[in-house]
């Protein structure tokens, strides 16, 4: 067992400093050290996408990174999407409106990827959304309502 390193990160705007063993996964660090359990773990081998967070604004699979690799960097998780804890941002609201989630376990990761997509491509077509979504596994929805939700969110965010 290696000795712990200090890891300093900003998560959803809040600075944290915690000891972390070199082998500690970023996903476990976020969930169990920082107690931000909205980020979920589905496979721990980088396929399902449930653990996706934004690292310096880019979607990454937090199960494929060590916590120490995030030292000094900025992380956004699902808890950081809405302005207040009892509100939904336009993307989240569109997911509710379109029934884009069922069990909701894969949803936080999908929200993070789609947040980055809509930032980079505010007006995506369906195939662009499907391609971005294809990096995530969802067993409940069959994806169609998720695609509709992202397109609706794009429309509503563009209209504002």
């Amino acid at each position, binding site marked *: 067992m290696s000795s712990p390193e200090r890891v300093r990160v900003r998560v959803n705007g809040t600075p944290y400093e915690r000891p972390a063993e070199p082998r500690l996964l970023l996903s476990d660090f976020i969930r169990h050290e920082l107690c931000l359990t909205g980020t979920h773990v589905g496979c721990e081998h980088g396929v399902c996408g*449930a653990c996706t967070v934004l690292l310096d604004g880019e979607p990454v699979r937090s199960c494929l990174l060590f916590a120490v690799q995030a030292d000094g960097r900025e992380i956004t998780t699902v808890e950081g999407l809405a302005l207040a*804890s009892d509100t939904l941002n336009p993307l989240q609201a569109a997911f509710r409106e379109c029934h884009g989630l*069922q*069990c909701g*376990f894969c949803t936080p990761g999908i929200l993070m990827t789609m947040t980055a997509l809509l930032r980079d491509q505010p007006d995506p077509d369906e195939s662009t959304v499907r391609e971005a979504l294809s990096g995530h596994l969802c067993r409940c929805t069959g994806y169609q309502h998720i*695609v509709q939700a992202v397109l609706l969110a794009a429309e509503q965010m563009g209209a504002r």
Partner: protein
Amino acid sequence: MTRIIGARVPRNEDARLLTGRAQFVDDVELNGMLHVAFRRSEYAHARLTGVDVSAARAREGVVAVYTASDLGDYWRPGPLLVPPPPIPGLVFHQATQVPLARDKVRHVGEPIAMVVATSRYLAEDAVEDIVVDAEPLEAVVDLERALAPDAPVIHEAIGSNLAAHAVQRKGDYDAARARAALVISRRFLYDRGASAAIETRGVVAHWDAHAEQLTIWDTTQAPIPIRNGLAAMLGLLESQVRVVAPFIGGGFGPKIMMFYPEEVLLPWAAIRLGRPLKWIEDRLESFTATTQERGQVHEAELAVDAEGRILGVRDRFVHDTGAYDPYGLTIPINSQCTLLGPYRVPAYESEFRVAFTNKTLVTPVRGAGRQHGVFVMERLLDLAARRLGIDRVEIRRRNYLRADEFPYNHGILFQDSAPLVYDSGDYLPALEEAARIVDYDRFVREVQPRLRAEGRRVGLGIVSYVEGTGIGPYEGARVTVEPSGKVRLATGVGTQGQGHFTSFAQVVAEVLGVAVGDVHVITGDTSVFSWGTGTFASRGAVVAGSACHAAAHAVRAKAIALAADVLKVDQSCLEVANGRVAVAEDPGRGIALGELARLANPLRGAVRPGTEPGLEATAYFGPERGSTASGVHAMEVEVDPETAMVRITRYVVVHDCGRLINPLIVEGQIQGGVAHGIGNAFYEQLKYDESGQLLNASFMDYLLPTASEVPPVEISHVETLSPLNPLGVKGVGEAGCIPTGAAFAQAVEDALGDSGLEILEIPLSPTRLYELLQGRGLSP
């Protein structure tokens, strides 16, 4: 008043899930919590000669290591969850799973030792320290070979690998066959897949020694039976055990078991150690330790007259139950019963044998054996239609039960031990509607010939199914109006994403005239509601929904009676709407439900003898038998002749689940089911080698369909109300994935035109389809 039942209401639970606040089992953090990892068998079949845990126990951070011998009297095989129905002549041999393997291991992934440590990382380190001595035995992998007289025996006490044998028949099949114009006989294969919920299983157990209270958070679809069973095993009162199934990240069947070893072991060890314990399954464990489904081999034949009318069906099949059979015969009986479909089958002879194999246990996975029956029957009809020169749609039309034939008794027993009686249905309109949406006639006459002339291989599949849903025994619900006017609804069936927080709330909101958002649903916590069985067999809306309906009506009656007293009017002139009870003719004269709730719970003064406090009622509902949902799926595909890749270009579902409570939720269930079915049909297959090793135990190797593979599903609803419950609803959770394989096979076969290729197996894959094409000399 606008109807709330039937409205496309967004879900009450979504805000919590979308902001990361919903609690799943792995989100439970407790002071002093320890973490568990399991040493599992690397062999499919072996005799255990020694398990040395001394090095693991000595590792820093390890608190305890347990093997079977440490469990003492607590070591015992699990219960038989579903006793077989009373089929005459039935043979059933029970062999249920054990908490930790002793003497022998029977599948890869079977737990041998349990490690408790201060972190999961350390627990997994210690798992590697454990030395297992085992003598490998020949593994039984192929399910037909399992029943050969010289096959190695998995359960010595039984003496062979035959777990069960059953025959159900009606009419005289031999006589039907003798007068048939055509008999189609084929062998059909269906292989295993994983349920692959994105949340794996998990258990957290906490023993509070001061309160003498055990709390278990469990990813189970059946918290109440788990509580009752654990209380009995641990010698506790049922009231001392609380099982919470919080938000569950997908169930699909395998999250209902009695018991998984981990569910038995964590509570026991938490009491012994006096510390909270957590175990979360990792994905590799999930591929070998969470139950699976779908291995069957059918030898089936269909006898028809010259017009394609069914005279009889004979089916003999073998069902793979894996290493143990705790779930009884639910799956093969579902296969047996569902084969009959929407058709009039005068003579039916169905015989199955169930085989033990050295593979992960088999219990129901979404569809639960129904797929197999639909696949066999639909394929037989397709082949008969082709031989007789009858159109595919027409042969189905000729054999459908008519709307005036319900209730229709098929004369055999269903999985719930009740006779297989269809409550209601009307199949032809769904078929016509599906054919209309895909423009079947034009496709066959114009589109396909034109594209084929261009060298493109496009095909269409259109198939029917019925699905027994909403079986008993019963569920319950308690409805309470709070003084704030908000309504609490408690029920025992947990949710794995089906929208119970909303559809149940809709039922109550409609009866009590309140907003859906003001009905707060609590499910899956035995401390809140402790009677019921669980979420399975597409039964939540039917059985628990009906209980919610009854409880809400009882509360409504109480509110009206009290309001009549308060307002000094006759009950018959009152109505309940907008959160108030008011005089229908004079809506200004009324009283809020919340105020009635306050008045119904006086702090001082006398009440009339027999008065119950509060605006609260509990009700139970148990249907006499299941309700029968049905539908038609149509699919268009294009096959790339060079790669054998199949692209699904269109998917249509016409579905009848009785009255729709929430069309948005129903459509979500269907789309998700279709995606699951597409995975089963073309992408997902658990590949075992001859030694029983699973070769594709990761999401890199086991392919779940993604947004690139799953097409949009066009859905149309037919509503044939069920007479068996007050809401008229039928189940919907499994429907989407049941006929998908049959539709896919027909469509691919159709795309390959007059090649003569017959698709008699599911799952296909691009590779397997390529092999089949090469076999026919069709590929480049």
